[in-house]
Structure formats: structure tokens, C-alpha cells
């Protein structure tokens, strides 16, 4: 069977999503994403450069993965947002350390 080749969107740092895009992609409410930003778990790339207008926020596409993880952690382990933010930070740190460890081995 021949099939066409699908082109996906690479969710890298160069790709940017609006608050609305992010909500649609994660099936989450804007309020929840705003809370994640307020908690410091997530940072729009232009948080400090534009006037503080949530509708103008742009997120780098790798935020999507963070939001997904945050949703699962909150849902499955019933941790509050501060806990989710802490877990995300620690997970990121562990990943960075493990990568470094692999390069040193």
C-alpha cells in the first residue's frame, strides 16, 4: 500500500504558539495556563518584552510537552500547582544531569 508522507510540525524552540494555540493543543483552559505562568512553571518567550497582555503571549513549542506533563502530574498524583512547578523543575534538572552523565561516561 502506498501512502503519502505526512509532514508534522517539529515542536522546537523556533516554533511559537499563542496562548490560544496552546490551550487547543492541550485541551486546557486559558486560566490554567495563566496559573502555570504565574507559578513560574512556564514562561512565554515575550513575557518581559511586551506589555503584559496575555493574548499576545507567545510560547516556544517545547512548552507543549511541559504543559502535558503538568496536566498528567496534577491529574494523576493530585499535586497542586506549586508542587507541579517544583516537579517540572526537578525533572528538567535530572534530564540535564543524565545527559551530561552520558556524555562523560
Amino acid at each position, binding site marked *: 500500500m502506498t501512502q503519502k508522507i505526512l509532514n508534522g510540525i*517539529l*515542536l522546537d524552540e523556533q516554533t511559537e504558539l499563542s496562548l490560544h494555540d496552546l490551550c487547543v493543543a492541550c*485541551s486546557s483552559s486559558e486560566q490554567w495556563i495563566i496559573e502555570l505562568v504565574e507559578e513560574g512553571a512556564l514562561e512565554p518567550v515575550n513575557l518581559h518584552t511586551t506589555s503584559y497582555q496575555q493574548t499576545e503571549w507567545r510560547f516556544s513549542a517545547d512548552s507543549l510537552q511541559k504543559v502535558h506533563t503538568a496536566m498528567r502530574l496534577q*491529574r494523576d498524583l493530585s499535586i497542586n500547582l506549586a508542587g507541579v512547578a517544583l516537579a517540572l523543575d526537578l525533572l528538567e534538572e535530572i*534530564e540535564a544531569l543524565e545527559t551530561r552523565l552520558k556524555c562523560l561516561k
Partner: protein
Amino acid sequence: MDFKDYYQIMDVKKDASQDEIKRAYKKLARKYHPDVSKESNAEVRFKELGEAYQVLKDPEKRAAYDQLGKNWQAGQDFNPPPDWDAGFEFSGGDFAGDSAGYTDYSDFFESLFGHGFGSVHQGRQQGGYRARGEDHHAKVVIDLEDAYQGATRSIVLQAPELDSSGHVINKQRTLNVKIPKGVKQGQRIRLSGQGSPGMGGGPAGDLYLIIEFRPDSMFRVDGHDVYLDLPVTPWEAALGASVKVPTPVGPVDLKIAAGTPGGRKLRLKGRGIPASTPGDLYVITQITLPPADSDAAKALYQKMAQELAYNPRSKLGV
């Protein structure tokens, strides 16, 4: 279908209190949560655990399960006796529909609690219900060369779907997907609308492909940067040389300066994984000794020992 021992899965005794069960769940959920856990079978364990907890946390379901489970052991071939759940009051609706988190239950669970456990049915809402389809996630293993050059991968996905009579079947489908060059370990590719179909005219979910690099015997990867251990001879390191260095897309020439020590990190700018800011290739020198396995080789080493008067431990004070 195998009988599942939910007590064994949750590592609690059969007479555990509801509080003990809750504690055991919380502890194991943290241990096996797929976003956190390093266990290789975390996802399977976490699903099993969620399923076990759905039953044991609910005194009604637990009582029904206990009644049934007296004569069974984990792994035994199992078919639920007809009307096994008769006589148990059940307050919810169709159970399989009431929890957003765990939709992927085992056959064992489905056979017991999936289709209207207990006699009180509410049924799912039919009209006017519209929901976006579920997102799917799948891992794609690629070689480092693919990240340099891009590639096309065929991905076989198994997804549970409802057939026309409402039974869950595992449907297989193959997708050909372009992997763009410049991807990094752990990065996601989103394929819009390739997840589960929506309900009631809602949009389909998305498919996320998670990029994973096949471990390479030569190269190590950190983001867009690539690392390589490069063996060099003592005379190349001491006198300087131009040597061939492999890269994932073919060899290049590298100049080694005279007096390069072992463990020196040499940067080949832009020879890492391509991107708008391409990564670098780091070559780490490893000085290797030729074996002293012939008279001629031994004589050369002895000559060096006599003529160089070199003490590598002088800084250690000995």
C-alpha cells in the same frame, strides 16, 4: 484472559483498610508515574495500578471483586461467571466512562466493570455531546544520521477503536512520517488530527511523535551538540598532526596541535546536528599507547625512558 490480583498489584494485604489502600496507591503512583519514573515498565505498572485502585478504593466494587476473587489467583485463565455482580448495589453509571484519566483498561477489568457493572445503568449521553478526540503519543527511534539529514519513517500504531457494534478492537495503521533534519533527542513532532477521532463531530486529537536516538557506539549527543572520543597516538599528540575524524555524515580532517594533552576537548564548530544555530561536534582526545609487544617496540620505549627523563608525577611531589 488472565485473572488480575489487584491486592498483589497494590502490594497490600487482602484485609487492608481503605486508608492503607489510599496510601499504597499514592506511594506507588509517584513511583511509577510515567513522567517521573525511570522504571522500564512504568507505564504498564501505572496503568495496572490505576485500574487496581479504581476497584479497591470503591467499597462496593471491592466487595464484588473480593467475592469473585476468593477462588482465583493472579495469572489464572479467567472468565467472569454469569451474573457475577448480581446483588451488588452500584451507584454510578457505566463505569468505564466515568474517569478521564484511565481509559485503557485491561480485558479483565472491562469484563467485570466495563459494561454496566451492577444493575443501575445510566448510559452515556448521546445527543449534543461533542468532544475532541484523545491525543496519542508514540516513540520514534532514529539514528543520529537521520537527525543530520532528515528521514522518512514508517510508524505502525495500534490504537483501540470501537467497531460498529461498540466493541473495543485494536486497530493497526501505518503512517509514513517525515522526520525533519535538526531534530533533538526527546523533541516532539505534532501531527494534527492523527489522534483519536472526535465524538459527536468534535475534532480529532493529535498524534505526538517523540524522537528518540538509537544509542550510537561512537557518538554521544547533548541537545544539538555531539561528542566523540578520538584516539590519538602519543606522537600525534606530541608533535601535532592532521587526522581523519568520523562525523555522522562522513569523515573530516582535523588538525591536532603539537602538545595536545589527553582529554582535550576540540570543537568542530557547526559540525553537530544542523539547526538554525547548528550544534558543534566536540572531539575529545584520548592518547592511546602502542603495545610494547615486540623487541623493537620495547627498545623504543626504553630509549624514551632513558632520553626523555620525564616524570609525570612531579606535581604530586614524588
